[in-house]
């Protein structure tokens, strides 16, 4: 399937290029827009991996709602293209950071090329995802798993959201006399 390969390569290029954009743009707003592009390219990856529902929430919630909040704060704190802190790190720090990154990437890629999912893992891991998708449809299969086998972690994230709300209140609410 040549079309699939071309799509994959285009998506991979966009994803990696936009990731580079995030870390190299001097203006945080451009970094932000790069990050949104990166999240969208990941959503397309999820589509090629046949999970329409996760791709949808990636676009709606992550690239949409969360990033809008992020963008709002970035524009608020970045007055005239400058950052909220001093100049970026020195040249040797860049070199050291890039060196470490190359070592990390090299190690990861060499291991990933040598290794693969064992057939045993395919047997052990299978819990009928494709059958469930065929039976229920993509979104409903997601929901059935989320509300049955994986209901507990889902419920516990409620605590996480309470903490996040408390954090926003505690850290940003100011009293008149402060």
């Amino acid at each position: 399937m040549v079309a699939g390969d071309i799509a994959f390569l285009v998506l991979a290029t966009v994803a990696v290029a936009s990731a580079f954009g995030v870390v190299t743009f001097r203006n945080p707003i451009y970094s932000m827009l790069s990050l949104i592009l990166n999240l969208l390219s990941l959503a397309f990856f999820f589509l090629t991996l046949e999970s329409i529902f996760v791709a949808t929430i990636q676009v709606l919630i992550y690239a949409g709602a969360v990033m809008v909040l992020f963008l709002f704060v970035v524009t608020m704190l970045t007055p005239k293209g400058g950052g909220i802190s001093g100049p970026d790190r020195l040249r040797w720090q860049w070199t050291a950071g890039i060196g470490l990154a190359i070592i990390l990437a090299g190690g990861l890629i060499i291991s990933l090329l040598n290794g693969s999912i064992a057939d045993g893992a395919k047997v052990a891991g299978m819990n009928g995802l494709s059958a469930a998708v065929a039976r229920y449809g993509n979104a409903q299969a997601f929901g059935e798993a989320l509300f049955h086998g994986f209901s507990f972690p889902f419920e516990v994230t409620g605590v996480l959201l309470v903490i996040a709300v408390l954090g926003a209140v505690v850290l940003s609410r100011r009293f008149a006399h402060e």
Partner: protein
Amino acid sequence: MIFADISPFTYTPGATDWLRILPELILLGTGLLTLMADLVAAPGRKGWLALVGLAGVIGALVATVMLWAGGTYGDAFYGMVNDDRVALFASVVILFAVGVGLLFSPGYVERQGIVHAGEYYTLMILAALGMMLMSSASNLMMLFVGLEILSLALYILSAIVTTRRRSQEAGMKYFILSSFASAFLLYGMALTYGATGKTSLAGIRAFVTTHAFTMGSGFGPLLVVALGLMAVGFCFKVSAIPFQAWTPDVYVGAPTSVTAFMSVGTKVAAFVGLARVFLFALSPLRPTWEPVLWVVAVLTMIGGNLLAATQRDVKRMLAYSSVANAGYMMVAVATHTQASFQGLLIYLATYAAMNLGAFGVVLALERRDGQGTTLDDFAGLGRRNPALAALMALFMFALAGTPATAGFIGKWYVFYAAMRGAHVELAIIGLLASLVGVYYYLRVVWAIYFTEPATAPLLVTADESAPVHEPIASASATATGGVALAEPATATGIAMATRVLPAERAPVHLATWLGLALAGVLTLVLGIVPMLMVDWALAAAQTLVK
């Protein structure tokens, strides 16, 4: 493995599942109750919320003991959490830590002028809930969610003194570095899942037991990388060298009551999580990960003790001492026998008692501007406040590992297990490193009893310390502090500061005394009659390491 045949698409939890997480449920209810009760609490008089929280903590403790006595442990919620003895043992330590932390809080919160006192108590309880969930996790998902709950709550608690820049910067630093570490841990989890096809710890263990592992091919490379990434993530969380850089700044910048609680609670949760992954799920791969943890243990013991020995600020010294203690605990993990895991649990329990106590004394001495914790401030404490001095001496002797205190018992079991587990060299390095520890812990005792304060410290504070170093802190502390509110705010900020600050070495709050007494009694009891705890730790170790 019980859940292997059940489809995740049809499983439904039942009443027993909820019963198994009863302590967590009680704690959650308490957290939400304090949040609601905050609405009816008058501003500035929120100390009783700590009592509400404490009642809930005691309730959760009772539920934990009942589950232990019931003795029918098992998985719950599709193998997400369990209530085995390791989880219950860890829960008891965590509940003790949060209980003492809550006792330390009312006096301190009032003195530091923390405006969001109600939310403070809620966050503390929810952080403890996250720690309990993490230590009772039997699935990588719950391990991750529990870790994130405790981390998020602690980021906020570290930064909660919004009027003090050091606290906010502590929150910021903790947030960035800890999320960075979480990402590494998560990537490790993803690759583990990819290599074994499972996210449940029992499933991973079954897979690596039944499939031949080679480092160069098949699922081997994936798992080796996963091990490395998870080791990095966990080492960050337990502040092991070389990933300790965040610890001193965060521990010093955060409010001391939070530091006391977090230095103990995160260690318990992270070490139990580490043990569940490395000693249980991936224990067949021991030869692969053992050298890495060996190196980390040695570096952390030596580096932590040497760095701690150079500090003059007692709070910062205790922060580095917690790094050094992470090293001793890492010895227990690197030894990977049942006895060493028992040693780890014992060490965690004893460390909780003495470390909470030590931070508690620092908290009692700390002044409103966050200063007053250097060795010079401890000079002559023996005459100024004999009770506090005696407690500090006790905790310092315990941390140094003196016999008849809790610290000795913890070190004894860890090093003895290391020698029995063919890691004599780790035991020897640990003993030598603790000799350095003896020096800096006893230096505090020396300062307390055998030195005199150089100048009158209270006058120094009033003249230069507060207004120069932290303008916002002093200005708003005078504006929000209980004393200042009673007065008409006519004087200028500096004048107010000079007038209020001399009185700020306030008498130690009753609840703080209670917390210190609890920690002190436990430090002695665990040191003199440790047998009951040792048996419990053994029972717990037997359920996890076979």
